[in-house]
């Protein structure tokens, strides 16, 4: 792949105004496919979830999955859309080996949801409202594997293999209106928008929302408008951008690439471009042309979807609090700084921290444990934090620390025990005998012994060299196997030395 010339980003933004648009595909997590009863499952043996309908066999006919309709309506509502009173499926006709029927069953001029808006907040605090043109339902294509050739990519491949398990999986495609005025924030807007959509579908529970598995996929439309020109530039559509980081990078890349082309007197080709995660570049795909005549027409094998207003309102009542509003509320309730809160959010710990607080822990302690020790352990083991320990256990652990039963150091040992499956924090404390020794008699005996063993230290303390007490404290803590509150030991050492 030839390396494209890129213009410095700042310079590009000085000369051109980026105009963005997104098409986000969300794979719904229904039990079955969009138009047949085959299981909607990821990672099964090839072609195990197929039937005459999703395999496009002669005679196969579609039947609409009601759950997919409900999920689409709920998603539409969560994106602030109007829900169509009358909506239809249409056939989008094109030939491609991963498309079993050689048409995609999609929606054309009568989508289920339209005219929405989503306000996103950038790290700077700037709020940007993204207008949603439509959210429509359609079915996914099968999966191609390209064989032979050097790279395993489509170019140079000798042949390809098709697995139709994914064929017919329900998708909602969310299409934005043109986004102008993004300026230097454009890459961040792209990332934040997709992150927000992902957050919404997750909160709704309508998708597994795992980008790495392709549950949420983004196509980025981008064009550049020369400053001072009323004329929109030619846009490219970058496909296959499947991580938040890539989306940001792809937007930056396309701005720089298009600017360089335009500045050199060239023209932008209206085309599909493919994002390459490894190289951080896009490469040209098929040019858009007259050949894009999809010959849409109403799907005659399906009847219209006309959701009653009652049904729509019932579904509206099931919507969770919008994630952005929830974040604002929680940050205020918990009194976190923006940085602290962002840390929780970015580590995907918001739900866990919230649950821990709900179980009785203080907000700072819940944050400290989840973003600190637990995150560290999860990271070391390469697993998600919530698989290690439940919020209720963390809350119980925090309670023990607050009560003075455990020091932080002991609490970390207890946490290890809980994770190892030894029981609740209280049970681990008992089994391992890890509670803080709060009995002064035992401490005093140990202190007296240590002072007697180190008369020189005792002398120094009596001379007012209080810092010398450290040596005695260390010996006491050692004698107590760490199960003592160091601050209390210090107090007692000074007391006894004075005696």
């Amino acid at each position: 792949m030839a390396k494209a010339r890129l213009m410095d980003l700042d310079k590009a933004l000085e000369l051109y105004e980026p105009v963005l648009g997104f098409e986000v595909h969300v794979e719904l997590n229904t039990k079955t496919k969009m138009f047949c009863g085959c299981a909607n499952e990821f990672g099964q043996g090839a072609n195990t979830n197929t039937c005459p309908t999703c395999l496009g066999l002669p005679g196969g006919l579609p039947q609409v999955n009601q759950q997919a309709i409900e999920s689409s309506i709920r998603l539409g509502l969560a994106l602030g859309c109007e829900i169509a009173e009358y909506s239809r499926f249409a056939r989008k006709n094109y030939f491609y080996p991963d498309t079993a029927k050689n048409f995609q069953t999609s929606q054309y001029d009568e989508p289920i949801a339209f005219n929405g808006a989503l306000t996103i907040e950038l790290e700077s605090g700037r709020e940007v409202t993204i207008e949603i043109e439509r959210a429509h339902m359609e079915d996914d294509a099968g999966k191609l594997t390209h064989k032979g050739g050097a790279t395993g990519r489509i170019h140079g491949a000798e042949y390809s293999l098709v697995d139709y398990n994914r064929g017919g999986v329900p998708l909602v495609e969310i299409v934005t209106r043109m986004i102008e005025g993004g300026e230097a924030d454009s890459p961040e807007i792209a990332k934040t928008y997709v992150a927000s959509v992902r957050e919404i579908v997750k909160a709704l529970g309508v998708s597994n929302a795992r980008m790495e598995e392709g549950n949420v996929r983004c196509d980025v439309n981008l064009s550049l408008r020369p400053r001072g020109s009323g004329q929109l530039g030619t846009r490219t559509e970058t496909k296959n951008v499947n991580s938040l980081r890539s989306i940001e990078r792809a937007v930056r890349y396309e701005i720089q690439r298009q600017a360089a082309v335009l500045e050199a007197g060239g023209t932008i080709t209206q085309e599909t471009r493919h994002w390459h995660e490894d190289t951080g570049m896009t490469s040209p795909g098929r040019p858009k042309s007259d050949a894009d005549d999809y010959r849409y027409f109403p799907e005659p094998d399906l009847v219209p979807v006309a959701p009653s207003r009652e049904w729509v309102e019932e579904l509206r009542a099931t919507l969770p609090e919008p994630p952005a509003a929830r974040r604002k509320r929680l940050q205020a309730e918990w009194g976190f700084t923006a940085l602290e809160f962002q840390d929780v959010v970015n580590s995907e710990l918001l739900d866990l921290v919230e649950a821990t607080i709900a179980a009785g822990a203080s907000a700072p302690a819940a944050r400290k444990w989840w973003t600190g020790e637990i995150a560290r352990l999860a990271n070391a083991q390469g697993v998600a934090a919530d698989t290690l320990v439940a919020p209720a256990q963390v809350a119980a652990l925090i309670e023990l620390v607050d009560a003075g039963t455990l020091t932080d150091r002991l609490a970390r040992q207890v946490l290890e025990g809980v994770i190892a499956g030894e029981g609740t924090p209280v049970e681990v404390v008992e089994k391992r005998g890890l509670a803080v020794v709060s009995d002064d008699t035992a401490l005093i005996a140990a202190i007296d012994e240590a002072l007697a063993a180190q008369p020189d230290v005792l002398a120094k303390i009596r001379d007012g060299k209080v810092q010398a007490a450290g040596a005695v404290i260390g010996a006491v803590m050692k004698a107590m196997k760490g199960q003592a509150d160091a601050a209390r030991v210090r107090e007692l050492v000074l007391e006894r030395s004075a005696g």
Partner: protein
Amino acid sequence: MSEITAEQVAHLAHLARIDLSPEEIDHLTADLVQIVDSVAKVSEVATPDIPATSHPMPLTNVFREDVVRPSLTVEQALSGAPARDGDKFRVPAILDEE
């Protein structure tokens, strides 16, 4: 309204993925001119105030419950495949992504 040319028929054949011979294109062009002339009369009565009927019966909201039905076995699914490789369908090299 039907100025159908051989070029246009060739384009339609490409859209429809049929590798028509030049003779077929010529024949079909003549056929299409005749047929389209004859069927174009639909627009005589199709005035804007008339709604389109795409389904003979006015049904709406026909849904299936989200319950898994048995799929075909892999062998059944692949039983008609002109070419296979393991449990996948095998196709010749693909020119480009759609």
